[in-house]
């Protein structure tokens, strides 16, 4: 029998929330961490966005790169932190440099400073690094991580290796090393390329890049090793990838794309959380006067009256709910047997702990896991 979301929250060591932007990923990640604390676990949630509102909702001033405990009435504990890409990268450089001097040279290098702000995939890489750090080197039972809101959110899986390859780039060797034979031909061409590029983007920036790779010499093995470990953790059984979506056609399509990419990496979706579902008012029985079409027909007949407005309102709601259910069918099948957890739009803004708690009780039911899996 497939696990329910409740069991995932109870048993996993890592939960990765993926999905496109605007589907409530950050909030969902926080809710899952809170629910784990309610089960008596020590959890930590890592957010990627500067989620000021989440900090407010959790009752803390500001999220930083180090875990801040959230106070509340629960048997376990929950911490939250916001990923600081540069600080995390700096930490890695310090960890793998041979000595303080090597670290300083790298940290001072212009090219290095650009890496954390501009190299695509770095944020994903540091998110997974932070996750690894928290999972392996702290005493949290569960790390919940929110992923960057890009279409390539699954760069998350490939970023460590890609970055390791990038850092292993022997740009300076191409330029410096005397060469022979076939390698020489390649190098001459590459040197010519680098020279032409220097003309376009400026010699000093290329100089910075070369200096960086020189300074980095010797550290790439450490980084590669680390990347391999991070990947191992991400594909481990105790790591659960949870898809977060809304029931709109386009985000459902994106979620399907994420599920495909995950399965390309031999990772299965463990649960799908669908936020912002339209509440269903009435039945689907088309003979019933309150079917979507029935309600719409009554609305038309009664147009211009107050009760007509009531029927319009119901017809709008029913029509939306029906469409949403239709979009989710294919995705539900695609991720089968993983559970689908629908969460209705609430008649309030989700901006405090009370609201997070209420949503949590809709996603996770600590007392009766069987019920949650059936929903």
């Amino acid at each position, binding site marked *: 029998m497939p696990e329910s979301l409740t069991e995932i929250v109870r048993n996993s060591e890592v939960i990765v929330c993926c999905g496109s932007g605007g589907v409530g990923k950050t909030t969902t990640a926080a809710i899952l961490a809170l629910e784990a604390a309610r089960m008596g676990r020590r959890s930590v949630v890592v957010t990627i966005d500067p989620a000021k509102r989440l900090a407010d909702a959790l009752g803390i001033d500001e999220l930083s790169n180090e875990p801040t405990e959230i106070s509340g009435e629960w048997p376990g504990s929950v911490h939250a932190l916001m990923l600081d890409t540069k600080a995390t990268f700096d930490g890695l450089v310090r960890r793998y440099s041979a000595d303080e001097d090597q670290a300083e040279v790298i940290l001072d290098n212009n090219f290095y400073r650009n890496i954390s702000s501009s190299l695509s995939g770095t944020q994903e890489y540091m998110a997974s690094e932070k996750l690894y750090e928290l999972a392996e080197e702290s005493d949290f039972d569960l790390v919940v991580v929110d992923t960057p809101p890009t279409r390539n959110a699954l760069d998350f899986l490939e970023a460590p290796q890609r970055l390791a390859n990038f850092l292993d*780039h022997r740009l300076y060797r191409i330029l410096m090393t005397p060469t022979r034979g076939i390698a020489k031909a390649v190098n001459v061409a590459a040197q010519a390329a680098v020279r032409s590029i220097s003309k376009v983007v400026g010699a000093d920036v290329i100089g910075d890049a070369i200096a960086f790779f020189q300074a980095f010499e010797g550290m790439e093995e450490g980084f590669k090793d680390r990347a391999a470990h991070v990947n191992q953790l991400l594909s481990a059984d105790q790591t659960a990838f949870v898809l977060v979506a809304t029931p709109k056609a386009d985000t459902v399509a994106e979620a399907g794309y994420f599920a495909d990419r995950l399965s390309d990496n031999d990772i299965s979706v463990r649960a799908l959380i669908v936020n912002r579902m339209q509440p269903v008012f009435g039945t689907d029985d088309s003979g019933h006067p309150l079917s979507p079409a029935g309600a719409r027909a009554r609305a038309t007949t009664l147009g211009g009256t107050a009760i007509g407005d009531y029927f319009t309102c119901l017809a709008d*709601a029913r029509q939306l709910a029906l469409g949403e259910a239709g979009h989710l069918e294919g995705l539900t099948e695609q991720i089968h047997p993983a559970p689908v957890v629908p969460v209705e739009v609430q008649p309030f803004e989700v901006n405090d702990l009370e609201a997070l708690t209420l949503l949590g009780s809709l996603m996770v039911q600590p007392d009766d896991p069987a019920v949650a899996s059936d929903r």
Partner: protein
Amino acid sequence: MSTGQLFPDSQVLIVAGKGGVGKTAVSAALAITASRAGLRTLIVELDGKVSLASMFDEEVLDHDEQTLVEPSRKHAGVSARTLTPDDALLDYLAGRGLKRISNRLISTGLLDIIATAVPGIRDILVLGKVKQLVRSGEQDLLIVDAPAAGHAISFLRSASGLADAVKVGPIHTQATEVLELLSDQEICQVTLVTIPEETPVNELIQTAYSLEEEVGVSLGPVVINGIHPDLAGLCSDVHSAASEAGTRLLDGEGELLSAAAEFRLSRQAIQDEQLDRLANSLPLPQLRMPYQFTSEMGRPELERLANSLELGIKKLESPDSPMGDN
């Protein structure tokens, strides 16, 4: 503000907003509105998303222009294409005699190194390409479906950052040109999109001030997507409303109708609060687009959104409109 002012000739409209607010649908509706007003319009999709094409029942877009709305008596035509940073960078290098080595640039990872060595170069080249498309004059209006809002700021700021960082050479020239484009109110406007909910509204307000202060771009009307139409009847009691209209409610119907109405009114209360807050915090004209009670945007929905945009733009023109006097 007239349709002409919102869409002057050879103009760029950059559409930005948080994920999930319907930025792509708004871009498409703006394009249809412009096309109806006689402007040949090109949507430039930077996010590489598939949703734009599917709204028009088309296959996935790529960097070749694809017609979405054929020119006709009513339409000047809408086409669309994608524009990715890597395409723009390769295009740029190719234009400088480096075409031969462009494949090697990718396979050796040198492209990544260049982009890292010159932060913002991808963004600046994308904007540079946009400028080139504007200059080509093949279209009357370019609608740029920009990256999600947080990134939109760094995206648009890349020009001033680079113009400062790189003092000479072709990159400097490129950055300066892009800066000119962005700050030329006659040519370029940014339209921010939101939905009437707390977080997206906060983000919009923040983005608006950052863009104005840090980038110096001109902000066009704010588009608020997903406004629930008012149903005045929901305020009366359901049973008296029924008997007033001489209709009978079946068992349980009254409860269902009330529940649906109560839910809608609660969402509308959130909406009204956020609309007020936005109007008070941000002195920009607003274009409001109705919520579409469908989970899938297609051509009929886009046409309806375009209708409401047209109405909204007309309203901005009339001097007695409270939103139009800004």
